[in-house]
């Protein structure tokens, strides 16, 4: 069977949990039962949400000491559930939290952990996991070695949350976590938000990037409107930042930031290789350029050859209307 470790905060499920369910379902391919476990203190609501998934069971694993995350608490709680269920695979979403405790869990269980998985491949009777290597320059097919369970953390967005099959309603059981808080070494203070001085494009889900095709500084405002219409952050290729039309923090490329958002819209960008290396990992790439030969079209999923000064307003209007 496959165990999915869902993630919640303050009773609300992290959307990545649904992605992990979808991944587990793809891995199971209908032949292995899936149990989803959610850990925390007040997790009844989250567990009830998860029951809508097409899985065999949902466990709400609860303990006061799990109310806020610490690695010791979660490692022992999950290890306890693993001991009970004896799964073949343990699937987790590759979140900051998972990155914090999953390797320790793997070490404590003395089992393989494959992280940041983008997909799975079946070959010669074995399951292989694809993951990026060398900062995304290469894709690796990786096998996990050693005895079960194998721990797998799935890259955010590798599977779509709405791809998780829904079912008739899985049974939910509440269990007390088998943990001893006295042994926990870390203490966590409440999380807080910091007003970041700099723009962090690497966290943006959508980006509209503008290049030389915008021609003049006064037209950058059009790109800004387009970004707003998409609900996206505004970024730029190097020449725009070199000119001072946008600050350096908004630069994408080998001398700027590397991003991989869900949606990347490149307007008036030719696609010089220095720019491409900064964005070609984006999930969906849209390119708008006057030049049909521009290299950007080689990496774009959708391309429009045309005048951005006509297309951008049209897209803004279309997005506003729908």
């Amino acid at each position, binding site marked *: 069977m496959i165990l999915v470790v869902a993630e919640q905060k303050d009773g609300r499920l992290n959307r990545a949990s649904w992605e992990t369910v979808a991944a587990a379902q793809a891995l199971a391919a209908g032949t292995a039962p899936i149990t989803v476990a959610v850990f925390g203190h007040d997790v009844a609501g989250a567990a009830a949400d998860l029951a809508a998934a097409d899985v065999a069971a949902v466990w709400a694993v609860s303990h006061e000491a799990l109310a806020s995350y610490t690695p010791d608490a979660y490692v022992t709680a999950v290890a306890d559930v693993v001991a009970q269920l004896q799964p073949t695979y343990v699937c987790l979403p590759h979140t900051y939290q998972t990155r914090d405790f999953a390797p320790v869990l793997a070490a404590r269980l003395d089992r393989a952990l494959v992280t940041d998985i983008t997909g799975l491949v079946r070959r010669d009777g074995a399951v292989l996991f694809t993951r990026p290597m060398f900062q995304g320059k290469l894709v690796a097919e990786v096998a996990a070695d050693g005895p079960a369970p194998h721990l797998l953390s799935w890259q955010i967005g590798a599977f779509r949350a709405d791809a998780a099959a829904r079912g008739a309603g899985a049974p939910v059981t509440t269990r007390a976590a088998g943990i001893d808080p006295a042994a926990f070494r870390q203490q966590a203070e409440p999380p807080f938000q910091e007003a970041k001085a700099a723009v962090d494009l690497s966290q943006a889900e959508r980006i509209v990037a503008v290049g030389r095709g915008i021609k003049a500084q006064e037209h950058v405002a059009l790109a800004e409107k387009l970004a707003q219409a998409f609900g996206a952050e505004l970024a730029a290729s190097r020449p725009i930042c*070199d000119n001072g039309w946008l600050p350096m923090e908004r630069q994408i490329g080998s*001398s700027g930031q590397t991003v991989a958002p869900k949606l990347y819209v490149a307007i008036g960008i030719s696609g*010089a*290789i*220095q720019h491409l*290396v900064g964005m070609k990992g984006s999930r969906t790439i849209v390119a708008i350029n006057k030049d049909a030969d521009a290299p950007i079209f080689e990496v774009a999923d959708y391309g429009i050859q045309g005048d951005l000064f006509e297309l951008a307003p049209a897209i803004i209007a279309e997005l506003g209307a729908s």
Partner: protein
Amino acid sequence: MERETLDVDILIVGAGPAGLSAALRLTQLQQQKGGDPLAIAVIDKAREAGAHSLSGALLDPSTLADLVPDFAAKGAPLACEVTADSVYVLGETSKFRLPVTPPPFTNHGNYVISLSQFVKWMARQVEAAGVDLFMGFAGQSVLIEDGAVVGVRTGDRGIGKSGAPRGAVEPGADIRAKVTIFADGVRGHLTKELIRQRQLGGAHPAQFGIGLKELWDVPKDRLAPGTVIHTLGYPLRQEEFGGSWIYAMPEGRLSIGFVVGLDYHDPLLDPHAAFQRFKTHPFIADILRGGQLVRFGAKALPEGGWNTQPRLHTDGALIVGDAANFVNSMRLKGIHLAMRSGMLAADTAFDAVRAGDASDARLSAYKTAIDASAVKQELYPVRNVHQAFGYGTYVGAAFAGLAMVTGGRWPEDLHGHPGHTRMRRLADYYGLVKRDVLQASNAVVADRVLTFDKVTSVHHAGVHHEEDQPPHLRVQTDVCHSVCGPEFGHPCVKFCPANVYEMIETPAGRRLQLNASNCVHCKTCDIMDPYGVITWVAPEGGEGPQYDGM
């Protein structure tokens, strides 16, 4: 913050073949002759040895055999021996193979090498011998006191574009030495300053070419390893000096390169574009078919020969290698000469330090040694050849033939001209046809399979510079913004292989934009700008191209 100081006996500026040969020779002398251990320091602007080393390259192993007799046992990376030589003259689609390979182009006994790997290997020998190799320290200025060279100051690190600190700041260090050996390569910026300050310029002006090189991986059976091909002709015209090389290395690795003399007349000539166009010739395209570009690089090379050497010594200083213009442009070889000059400088420097006398008179022993050495034996007979090419390819070739036969006997030494003075004005060269010379066309070809644009080439040079630092190209832009356009059409945009120079339209008119972080440190701009208003200085140490395998 306080500036670091270091006192040594001998400072070597530049960890290329000349500088490292000097360092290694010094350790050998130390061992042979004993006495107080010498304090030796080598500084280089590259992050690691070999990162900025680029050459074809064909190594004449004679000097290596003298310096490190057991070089084979020590694992010197001599990839393969030359097995076949040929020279072709190319027309637009035709090729004509010279029935006999002219002697300067024969390479029996020579090796196809990667200079970068070779320099890496030399650096390991130098470090194993206990010499301090300070990589990532760029020389900034020559320290002169009472007319004598007393050392070098390295550049500050951590300064932002505006001049304010970017983060942690490390002021440049003063390295003081009894003898400083200048081995900073072709158009070395410190040697240039030294020559100016101490008036070491020779009677004959230095002359240069630009070499552009690519590494390719092609199907392994395409060319046998050790195959050496040189071409003349297409796409260069009779009035232009240059040609190409193709050297086959093991495992399908190919070194292919193109040299253009930096003394051309056409102000709009673009050496990078010429190189790309050269690859479209059917003969060349066939060789590269199905292959993959691995690396790109560019570097100037000294072409003027024996007579263009500067005065090689002054109080406290010696000049070696490419910085002294010791390249045999007829044989297209300079590594063995650089190494030889480094060894001879080491001999002189060692004696000077032991004698406690680093005066110009004492150091002149180096020049005496050069004159008695294989360096002069090789360079003197061909001292006029490159200058003869100034009269056109046919005259040059004929002269070269003559020089071979007569051993270089000629009544008078031919005088060359600084290459940038031979660039003709637009109106003069193209007539009074009105044209906007910043049109993107101009014979640029880039299909991204066989040929590439400059920006892609820069990417393949592995160039890295901190963006937030003062630009390292010092340009008197009032010239760019006034007369250069009408007179020459902004040739910097053309001759820079890395797209560092761009003229962009602004509301205030055409302005020069410097993409300084693209720079591959080739020095072409410092050499070829017709007004002489560009000065290349070293950017922050540890940056620049990454010429793995070049």
